[in-house]
């Protein structure tokens, strides 16, 4: 069984491109999106070793000539890129061209390129399906910050881009056949699932890789709106915390706002493939990171002492030998010490520990009056940021949406008395119920709707929690656990028929057919449904690093799951995503609160 590692899959394609171009000095020509795709999996220093010495964008006009170079063009098959390629080939800059598209390209476009290639510079045109951004081995994204349009409809271009991304993911992981299941309550998930299924069926005939046994791989398409809670919570694992408090974009962290930062550290790269400390501590919590940073510092100080002792020629030689490693360690230490220092500072000045505990209790416990008191206390506290108050109000609104003593209005009034919330935040509070309220979602997000869930919650409460800051378990984990046990309900998550699979509604065993003929009610056996060996998840509307952490833990226990979404959200980007779906214009008291 192939390894489900999206980073390896992308690197494999890039290595192959470079090998195909042969032993010549090469230049890599990309577009804006493929530049991100390549940057995430390959460091510049590593690719320089493979004789790829120039990197440029196809959409940036370059007038000069580099005939002694071979161009490796790695592009998405968009109209703009095809036009740019045609212009390039009409006046070729490079000596020869090896062209690779990240997805299916129409024959008409091939024809246009061929007609433009008067100088016969093109050697190869291939499709290499690396049309997504690989973040961690089990995590990918399509870098689409806003998926929803007004009234939560698909934009045609985004739908096509998403379907292309998923097709390329399946092909890069060598899956040609899979069962596609989607969230029934989400129209967007359904449309995407059908589009994906049609595309796979249409394009299947050309692929030459081995066909997997049917029902082995399940592609699960869900909607972010089903779980609006997770992006609203503050995080305490390293990767998630950095993204939430500072922001990670394509593995780059902008530290220019950190007081007293040196020029060198204004922007740093956080890539687990090249940074051992980061790889080991991606999923460590804040307390563990502090201990590990201390250990790293001690290790660095030891090395520093040995480097300072230069008395003989032997010492000098050993200094020179170990200096590059020492320099690398020094860079790593300064980067992580700066980041952890900044996180610590932000936790202190914004009182995040107290806030996070309140958030977790709000979501996972049921003490309504206590939580309202606590929120009111935090509203009065000047140290707490406006955005954190907005988080609390939204969490409260979602948690106690149909509670008899719902105090969302009161809390909002209280907030507006003491703070000047921006228009954006007010609209966000208005929009959140429309986005992820009970009217839309089908899942029991708070374990309050059926007796099993209530019992489970009660038992959890009796057992107590290991960590008050990590009580919340995202919905995606529950769904995947159900899927792995074959208990994900077909009426809530139906499947789109794939090539070798007939509709599940007609899929009965012989004994059940006999039962049906005899007029007896049929009970679905959970083992009748697919127990997948591999699961590929796509979340319309984006995912979070908290969900990535849970998937990582499941994979450590033997599951084979790849998680992805349109974007990796933190609170700031999630606000934009929610507002893109539209702000409802109702006239009840909740929306008519006077602003200060």
């Amino acid at each position, binding site marked *: 069984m192939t390894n489900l590692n999206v980073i390896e899959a992308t690197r494999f394609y890039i290595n192959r491109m470079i090998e195909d171009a042969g032993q010549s000095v090469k230049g890599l020509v990309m577009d804006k999106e493929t530049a991100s795709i390549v940057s995430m999996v*390959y460091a510049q*220093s590593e690719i*320089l070793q493979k004789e790829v010495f120039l990197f440029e964008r196809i959409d940036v006009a*370059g007038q000069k000539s580099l005939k*002694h170079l071979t161009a490796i063009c790695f592009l998405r098959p968009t109209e703009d890129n095809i036009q740019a390629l045609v212009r390039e080939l009409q006046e070729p800059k490079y000596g020869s061209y090896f062209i690779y598209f990240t997805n299916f390209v129409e024959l008409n476009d*091939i024809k246009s390129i061929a007609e433009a290639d008067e100088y016969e510079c093109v050697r190869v*045109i*291939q499709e290499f399906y690396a049309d997504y951004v690989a973040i961690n081995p089990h995590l990918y994204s399509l870098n689409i910050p806003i998926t929803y349009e007004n009234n939560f409809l698909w934009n045609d271009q985004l739908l096509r881009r998403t379907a292309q991304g998923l097709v390329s993911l399946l092909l890069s992981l060598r899956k040609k056949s899979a069962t596609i299941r989607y969230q029934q309550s989400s129209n967007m998930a359904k449309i995407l699932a059908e589009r994906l299924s049609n595309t796979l069926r249409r394009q299947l005939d050309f692929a030459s890789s081995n066909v997997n046994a049917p029902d082995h791989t399940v592609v699960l398409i869900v909607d972010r709106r089903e779980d609006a809670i997770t992006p609203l919570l503050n995080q305490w694992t390293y990767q998630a915390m950095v993204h939430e408090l500072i922001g990670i974009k394509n593995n780059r962290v902008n530290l220019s706002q950190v007081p007293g930062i040196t*020029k060198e550290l204004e922007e740093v790269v956080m890539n687990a493939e090249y940074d051992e400390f980061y790889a080991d501590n991606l999923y460590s919590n804040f307390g563990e990171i502090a201990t590990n940073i201390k250990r790293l510092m001690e290790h660095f100080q030891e090395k520093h002492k040995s480097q300072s002792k230069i008395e003989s020629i032997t010492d000098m030689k050993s200094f020179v030998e170990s200096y590059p490693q020492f320099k690398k360690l020094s860079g790593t230490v300064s980067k992580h010490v700066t980041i952890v220092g900044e996180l610590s500072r932000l936790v202190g000045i914004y009182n995040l520990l107290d806030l996070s505990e309140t958030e977790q209790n709000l979501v996972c416990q049921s003490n309504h009056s206590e939580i309202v008191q606590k929120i009111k206390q935090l509203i009065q506290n000047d140290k707490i940021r406006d955005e954190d108050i907005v988080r609390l109000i939204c969490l409260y609104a979602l948690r106690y949406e149909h509670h008899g003593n719902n105090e969302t209005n009161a809390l909002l009034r209280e907030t507006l008395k003491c703070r000047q919330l921006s228009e954006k935040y007010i609209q966000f509070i208005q929009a959140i119920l429309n986005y992820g309220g009970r009217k839309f979602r089908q899942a029991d997000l708070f374990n309050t709707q059926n007796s099993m869930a209530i019992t489970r919650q009660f038992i959890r409460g009796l057992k107590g929690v290991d960590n008050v800051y990590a009580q919340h378990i995202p919905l995606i984990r529950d769904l995947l656990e159900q899927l792995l046990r074959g208990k994900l309900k077909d009426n809530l998550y139906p499947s789109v028929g794939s090539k070798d699979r007939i509709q599940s509604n007609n899929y009965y065993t012989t004994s059940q057919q006999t039962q049906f003929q005899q007029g007896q009610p049929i009970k679905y056996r959970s083992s009748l449904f697919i127990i997948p060996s591999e699961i590929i998840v796509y979340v319309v509307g984006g995912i979070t690093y908290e969900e990535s952490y849970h998937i990582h833990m499941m994979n450590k226990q033997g599951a084979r799951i790849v998680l992805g979404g349109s974007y990796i959200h933190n609170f700031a980007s999630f606000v934009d995503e929610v507002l893109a779906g539209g702000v409802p214009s109702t006239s009840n008291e909740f929306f008519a609160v006077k602003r200060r």
Partner: protein
Amino acid sequence: MSSRNLTSNFLEFRNRAVQNRTNYTNNNKLDDRSPLLNDDEDNEVVHFDRDDAFLWMESYRRMQSQFDEVRNQIKKLQQLQAKCLTRPGFDENDHSDFEIRSLTKDITSTLNNCRLAVQKFSSFAKKSHANSYEQHLVSNVVQATINTFQDLMLKFNQCQSNYVQKLQSQKDKFDQVIPHIAIDMYASPFGDKEFDQISLLSEVQQQCASPVDEYTIQRDKEIRDAYQSIQEVNSTFMDVSTIIFNQKASMDQIECVIGDSINSIEQGNKELVQAVTRQQRRLKIKLILLGIGIFILLFVVFISYI
């Protein structure tokens, strides 16, 4: 790995396009008025007389082949060292020792040549180039070459220090196992006191160098050792200079490099546009001044005529 090769479709389309172009050209009559040489020729296309690019590529290829040679030599050295360590024999050692020494000498001289070539190459990179792409390209090539050279140097140094350490530990173990036995050269092997010590002594005396000669030999040895130490210090400092050269503060991410180069190209474009605007403005001012001058002249002529 899933992929689809469209090269055959592409070649078919291209051949068809070529045929169509050829047919179209043949159908048109040759126009006698069309010039023999085309004035619109792109001046930026590299001509044979502009061989800067080929020069540095040539140097780059030469360095790569030297690096490959060094790699092979280091591999051979490691094999010899392993052989020496695992099968110590009195006669064999001499021969292996000699090979190791000569190979080490060869590698050191090749690395010195590589170092000079790298330094020359990096000074070439600092010169201005035809265009910004060429500049970026050459600086990336230099960076990659320095990294490769540094890695090779480190590998060689580590190989040597590991060998010395292993030899030392072998010697220590040997000394622990077999204690040092003092041998009396002048004692008779048969314990016979009437052993001809006198003749032996005289032979030994003749064979021994005089104190003055001994001093000269000692001095030569020490001078040689000092010279070797100075050479080692010199090579160590050269290595440090290579490492320091490589210490640019730059982000090791392709997207950032592209972003930086796009920014510098855009900056360059903006400045070009500004320069063109300023030039046009200056031309306008000149024309206006010229016009005023001509007007004044005409006025003066007109007045004088009146």
